[in-house]
């Protein structure tokens, strides 16, 4: 039997960042991971570091997180491969442009000015290789991308050096909640106790909640990506096209990473994803249509990562409605990567009973009907 102040389930980036912040606040933390830290979406996602086009509720956290990204070396001893080449979201037609114009007005009315409305000429300058339709778009010039595996490793290493006790291959099999707190049992025979329990298990968030008979509306979804062999440098910012399933970036080494939320087949019980090549074909067509330079690009690898998606595409952050002392921090719906350094800070305050620097109320599980 091992005892800590706080147990965190899930050593992805959200769990690790939370663990790091709690350890720095002097708490004893166990970080339980069913496999190894770098197994799933936290280490294999597209690595977008994006404030652009965020849900309004997320903007304050995203903007605060953005201030942390250029300072990563000081925070976790690695720049995490962060490159600030900007993010661009292109409006292919008048309707999209109208929509984006209204959006920027909305963002500005909240007091944020990172999203900039630009015309077609400016898009041409920013993304010369783009040959699709264009009526303008929006830009966040200091957004960019980072290297997920490197980021997770840096957070994990720093967390451990700050005293977090991480347990790999420790799949949680049962959780009981008594007067003295939580008792967590793992399949490999571990038994852990704490007053506070944080569910940071991403796509598995619903499974963990179910162990305490709580329903979380998180749908595991496998999102596909592909990467090409190195190409001559032709693109700096990360590019998306409004209304099209396309997310597109060229890394420093010349490889091009293509996403766009194309869904793979998923057998959650086996944690096995099978790419849907009908979707990959669509993805390849979309890329070619907008970036003809990509026709001859050589596809080296396609893969899918398992993400936890909620009905409204917003994460679930907050104390359980059913079990006091249990906190859910999961369901980031494929856009948690950029937020994670800030989420760790906010959740650390929240679970210590302090008021977080930024409000988290919008993410309470109570927003869903009949969640418990």
């Amino acid at each position, binding site marked *: 039997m091992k005892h800590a102040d706080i147990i965190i389930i899930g050593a992805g980036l959200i769990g690790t960042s939370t663990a790091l912040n709690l350890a720095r606040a002097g708490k004893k933390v166990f970080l339980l991971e069913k496999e190894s830290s770098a197994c799933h979406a936290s280490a*294999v996602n597209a690595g977008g570091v994006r404030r652009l086009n965020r849900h309004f509720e997320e903007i304050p956290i995203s903007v605060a997180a953005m201030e942390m990204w250029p300072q990563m070396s000081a925070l976790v001893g690695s720049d995490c491969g962060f490159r600030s080449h900007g993010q661009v979201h292109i409006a292919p037609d008048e309707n999209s442009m109208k929509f984006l114009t209204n959006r920027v007005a909305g963002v500005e009315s909240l007091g944020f000015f990172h999203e900039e409305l630009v015309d077609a000429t400016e898009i041409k300058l920013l993304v010369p290789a783009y040959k699709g339709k264009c009526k303008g778009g929006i830009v966040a010039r200091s957004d960019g991308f980072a290297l997920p*595996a490197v980021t997770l*490793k840096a957070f994990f290493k720093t967390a451990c050096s700050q005293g977090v006790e991480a347990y790999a291959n420790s799949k949680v099999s049962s959780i009981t909640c008594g007067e003295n707190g939580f008792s967590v049992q793992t399949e490999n025979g571990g038994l852990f106790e704490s007053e506070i329990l944080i569910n940071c298990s991403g796509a598995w968030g619903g499974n963990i909640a179910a162990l305490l008979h709580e329903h979380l509306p998180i749908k595991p979804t496998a999102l596909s990506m592909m990467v090409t062999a190195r190409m001559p440098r032709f693109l700096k910012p990360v590019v998306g096209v409004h209304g099209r399933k396309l997310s597109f970036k060229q890394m420093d080494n010349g490889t091009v990473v293509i996403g766009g939320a194309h869904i793979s087949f998923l057998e959650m019980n086996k944690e096995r994803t099978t790419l849907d090549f009908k979707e990959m074909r669509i993805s390849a067509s979309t890329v*070619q249509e907008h970036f003809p330079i990509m*026709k001859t690009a*050589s*596809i080296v690898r396609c893969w899918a990562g398992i993400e936890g998606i909620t009905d409204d595409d917003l994460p679930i952050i907050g104390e359980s409605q059913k079990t006091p002392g249990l906190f859910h921090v999961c369901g980031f719906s494929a856009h948690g990567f950029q937020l994670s350094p800030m989420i760790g800070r906010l959740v650390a305050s929240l679970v210590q009973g302090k008021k977080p620097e930024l409000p988290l109320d919008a993410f309470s599980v109570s927003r869903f009907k009949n969640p418990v």
Partner: protein
Amino acid sequence: MSELRDIIVVGAGPAGLSAALTASGLGLDVLVLDEQPALGGQLYRNIEKANEQTLKILGSDYGRGRHLIEKFRNSNAEHLAGATVWNIEANGNVYYSKAGQSSEIRGKHVILAIGAAERSVPFPGWTLPGVMGAGAVDSNFKSSGTIPEGPVVFAGSGPLFLSTLGHMTSLGVEIGAVLDTTPQGNLLAALPFLPRAMKRLDYFLKGAGMLLNLRRLGIKYAKGINGYEAHGRDRVEKVSYSSKNGVQHVEAGVFLVHEGLVPRCDFTQLLGLKHCWDAAQRYWYPQINHVGATEIDTIYVVGDGAFVHGGMPAITKGSLAAVDIAGKLNALPLDSKTVTLAKLEKKLSSELDFRPFVDVLFRPRSNLFKMSDQTLVCRCEEVTAGEIRRAINEGCLDSNETKAITRCGMGRCQGRMCGSALNEIIIDELNRQPLDTQPLRMRPPVRNISLAELSQLSLFKNRVR
């Protein structure tokens, strides 16, 4: 072409051809996909066009393929040449590229007969032009009759090493030196397996004949070599090698290296099948049963891709899988299936008499992967052994994590060249048992295809899963 076939065989070498003709002989609808332009795989490469001189030099191990291919030609099995398979799914879906067009096809069963590859071992200078696999040079000779220009230096160990050496001496290639890396203690360890192996006296006579021939030709033959490096400015000019006598040098126009064959596991790993570790030969091989069936009902593995046994056993292994599938698809009554399988298994067992002796005799040297920090391991992403060791010392625990951090194995070849070396470094640095390590995860496409080709991928109209 019909979308659903009884059996799709991947690879047209001895195992694939045998599986295909056995299955089609039992009335099954068989399609063979093979990336080579001609039937025969590596062993029987280009044999239908081989001239008398080639047949004489390559001998009966090669010539035997003619008969097999003739039988295949007379069978009802269909063959698609130049078809490179780049993805296989557990439900039997196979994706292949032919002449720039990719298509999907499905087999009720898929027989993987993709053979073995030369073990890729990084050493200083291994990326210099003029440094090649010995087996690759043998293949070139089979396909186009080309031979390397000397002085050729050979380094390595194993049956294929010796047979290539034999072919090249018969062809009159100028050989600068032969550096035999077989550990000298192996012979003693292999002795217990000698009596069973003696049934194949012909192999011993062949090997002895070849060594005598080297002596007769006055070719420098050095035993007990435990390391080598290639040197040169724009291409290899010199090879240095070490033994207990210290470091020596020899001039080289071409440097041919061969440190044994390993099963090609790209597709079995892509499919997530269980793999076992062979401690003698130090390689992963897919876990199969006595007829080549895997834990996925659809998928069979035969030939050297299942375990490196050589050509004759590959032919038998191919037939075993075909007969088993014929039973499953009701093309063969149970009693005759049982009888046929028993006969084939007996045949296989006798064909393998020689193998334990060979596997121990040619057990790789223990320092095979003990490369210096400066040695380039991943050619695609230019990652050195030192960078890999640093990542491991900074907390990477397995090859996939190390790959994500260092990019070793992330390039065009998806780790086919560097995967073994990466895993061996992990075994060494973390003092792991090989079975406690994980080979690199494979992702489709296992062979690169262009984005334009993917956008034109031909798929079934009604896709079911």
